């Protein structure tokens, strides 16, 4: 994971602090788009990979399973998903939202059932789209 501490190894020590930052850094209420990302990381933090998978967009989940040749929960266990760091801001346009954290950017998308994580572990590139650790097609 490019030199960052894996989520799995960071769980025990930093969980509370990370959850505080992911959930809005003191903001009183998440937007629905933020809630999807927050819920995903919270589920990972509590070891509920199955719950975390439920917060992924279907295409993202499909790509994750395809690229790892594992089902989604096991693929997430194998992935070294890191803490995104402190929440910075969220930008929403229609069915899409970009949530920027200190360490990475997350893209979420809206379905009729609610917002789901489309890409995470994203870092900007000099040219072109973000490079993401996990994403849909």
């Amino acid at each position, binding site marked *: 994971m490019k030199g960052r501490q894996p989520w799995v190894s960071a769980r025990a020590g930093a969980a509370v602090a990370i959850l505080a930052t992911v959930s809005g850094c003191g903001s009183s209420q998440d937007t629905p788009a933020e809630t999807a990302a927050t819920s995903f990381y919270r589920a990972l933090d509590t070891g509920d990979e199955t719950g975390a998978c439920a917060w992924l*967009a*279907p*295409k993202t989940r*499909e790509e994750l399973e395809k690229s790892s040749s594992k089902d989604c929960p096991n693929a997430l266990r194998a992935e070294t998903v890191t803490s995104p760091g402190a929440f910075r801001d969220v*930008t929403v*346009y*229609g*069915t*899409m*939202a*970009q949530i920027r954290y200190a360490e990475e950017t997350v*893209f979420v*998308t*809206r*379905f*009729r059932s609610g917002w*789901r994580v*489309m*890409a995470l572990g*994203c870092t*900007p590139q000099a040219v*072109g*789209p*973000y490079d*993401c650790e996990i*994403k*849909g*097609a």
Partner: protein
Amino acid sequence: MRSFVRENSLSLFFGGIFLASLVGETFAGMHQFNAQQAAVGLGQLTWFQYVLSADFAVDVAENWQSEFLQFLLYLTATVWLLQRGSPESKELDKAGRETDKDQKVGRHAQKDSPSWAAAGGSRTRLYSSSLAIVMGAIFLGCWLVQSVAGWAAFNENRLQQLQDPIGWRSYLLNADFWSRTLQNWQSEFLAVGSMAVLSIYLRQRGSPESKPVGEPHTATGVEG
């Protein structure tokens, strides 16, 4: 009632087909949007969500602004510009804003003229351009809505492609804004120009937009 419908049939007809087309656009647009979303594994919109979406708003506004621009330009250009033989043009010796007598304003107003035509001063000046002012205001309003809705729709697409959104000012310089704008403008200008020229030689019997069928091609400013 029958008399009301007959005497207002032109506006009722166009009002009706406008609403029918707009409603049709909401359904066709929603299916097109949802098909594109499904192709890349993204969520679907309900009809109500689509009607409130930037995608629908920009599609509507970009067409509306160009239509009102078309009539604004035609309205004002035909004050000064002429087309020999066209019923869309004034007679060749009448270019310009014409005299108060010709226009029936101020002391030349008739008993049944609009009160602001007879009032003189700023009210008559304002009323003398009121159609262009309102058309221009609607054009600018629709163009502004197009820019904001187009910006939101463009950024939604950028986020789908995992790219940062851009600011509204940057969008005003973006090819997407000008492509949407100019593709509508060129079609309106073509239609108006074609009408001005084709009506020199071609006729539609009974239409005030055409010369009478037997009128010579050289007759200018004559409507049927």
